[in-house]
């Protein structure tokens, strides 16, 4: 299993009696590509933050790639996230005032991976794979188009060769054409590198790319408005 949640409860410290998340049992097997849909405010972000180790569960077992995130300390979770989990947001995936290469290098520096010389090769080949013209490599990414930025975001998420990729509404700010480009690039990459993909979106038209489709309301026992 790539992801395994058992009896997970989560409540924010400011409101300890209001569970935001209550998951009896939920799992994703390795190399699965799962589409999770649900309305915003349904605990979606909280779930993703638990899986990436940004938050820790109030109670329960969070198992990612066979490791217990809920028993790690903050430092270990940061390291684990850098090494094993790629993350793509709806927006602000990159530091806007540094260029694409620096952005990817920055992501690499928090993981303990290969040497610097190999790194430059990997970055350039990733950028080429995602059709980023060489002239744009050294521009601040804030100056590039949204479509390009999201593709660089995948490259940034891939640089540490994560086993799990979490995508949080990554296509919401893209138009139809860019969305199709993005999805095909993402899907081929994921299957090529045997990556477990967790894709969260409210856009059901994207569900066609996925083999497994879960509704957040079925995973999370906490009902909206409770």
């Amino acid at each position, binding site marked *: 299993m790539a992801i395994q949640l058992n009896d997970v409860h989560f409540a924010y410290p400011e409101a300890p009696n209001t569970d935001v998340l209550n998951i009896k049992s939920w799992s994703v097997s390795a190399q699965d590509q799962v589409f999770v849909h649900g309305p915003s405010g349904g605990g979606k*972000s909280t779930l993703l933050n638990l899986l990436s180790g940004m938050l820790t569960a109030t109670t329960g077992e969070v198992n990612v790639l066979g490791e217990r995130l809920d028993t790690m300390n903050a430092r270990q979770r940061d390291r684990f996230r850098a090494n094993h989990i790629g993350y793509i947001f709806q927006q*602000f995936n990159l530091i*806007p*005032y*540094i260029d694409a290469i*620096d952005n990817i290098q*920055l992501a690499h*520096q928090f993981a303990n991976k290969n040497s610097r010389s190999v790194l430059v090769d990997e970055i350039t080949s990733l950028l080429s794979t995602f059709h980023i013209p060489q002239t744009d490599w050294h521009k601040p990414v804030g100056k590039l188009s949204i479509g390009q930025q999201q593709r660089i975001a995948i490259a940034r998420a891939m640089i540490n060769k994560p086993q799990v990729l979490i995508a949080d509404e990554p296509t919401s700010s893209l138009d139809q054409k860019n969305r199709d480009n993005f999805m095909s690039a993402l899907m081929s990459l994921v299957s090529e590198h045997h990556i477990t993909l967790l894709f969260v979106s409210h856009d059901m038209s994207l569900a066609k790319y996925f083999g497994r489709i879960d509704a957040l309301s079925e995973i999370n026992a906490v009902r909206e408005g409770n």
Partner: protein
Amino acid sequence: MFTRLASKSLLNRKGSVLLTIMAMTVSIFVLLGVEHIRGQSKQSFNSTISGVDLIVGARTGSLNLLLYSVFRLGSPTNNIDWETYQRVSSNAKVAWSIPISLGDSHKGFRVMGTTTDYFKYFSYGNKRHLEFSSGKAFEHIFDVVLGAQVAKKLGYSLDDMVILAHGLGRTSFSLHDKSPFNVVGILAATGTPIDQTVHVSLQGIEAIHMDWQKGVATDGTAVTDTQLQALELKPKNITAFMLGLTSRMATFGVQRDINNYRKEPLSAILPGVALSELWQMMGLLENTLRLISGLILISALLGLSAMMLASIKEREQEIHLLRVIGAPPSYLFLLIELEALLISFISMLVGTAALYLCLFIAQDALSTNFGLHIGLNILSFNNILFLLLVAGSTMVAAAIPSLTAYKGVDRGQ
């Protein structure tokens, strides 16, 4: 990568960063400037006189006596009788003596009547004697020796004619124009008030006042040189005199004797003691200036802190992103600290350079108008210590925004 991220982030916020740098620059400029000028003027004060054991003048406060006899500031209260000088300097414990007669000026520079012993015995700084950059000491009645600044400012060279003015004003209406003086020597620069002094012999002073009565020129024709030679020009009184003693141990004895001199009320002061008294008086001003520059620095640092804190709020997403790609909170803390330090270092560079430039430009004016000799070596040990202190305070001031970034692991979005 770390430094690059910090500097690019600062560049991305040019406007507010530039304003913060300006505020910091001004504060560092003031801080270093006050500290530097304080140190330099203290040094310049303390090096104006050395090797003189006692200064004797008419009964007055020690500061007043020191100011007019050494710094050529203020006016002498009263003169001393020539007889008195003769009697005191003939004391067996007195090794040498230098009489001083003040009261005239030349284009704003003070004239000092003295003897050739002045060039022989007077020393300044680290026991350095006076040296001539050209010419020699005065010999004849109407010979004059100029301080380095006097010659430089007024463009005099050897054999030029100089007319002295009665009184100390820069523009005097009563000139001793019947008896011009001949430049025979120019002293090497000393960095003390000597550079601003015109030196003539006591006889010269006596001669130009011969045909004067009660401070006003009479109509009579000038006394000729030959007439003067015939007269034995003995000064009736002088303003003050300096003593060198045979033994330092004798200083207090001689001082007591002079202070108890029966025929005339006299004051004898130890230049070193008077100098430190003078400096103590400046201490209050000095501390006030320090306090003010400290407060300016604190306000600039608070501005820096506020600017950084506001930027953290703007950069919430950026911080969240860094956390998600695996940056530990300590990385964020250090990143903000580094940004603050970069601002601080740039300000230090600009502030120091600006101070250097200002001193370079103002150097001459300060030394002619205020007798302050300010060197350009701003980066003294003290000032480097100050800069380190600024760096340290910057880190303390930046701790608040840095901690916010450290803890700013925003939940949810």
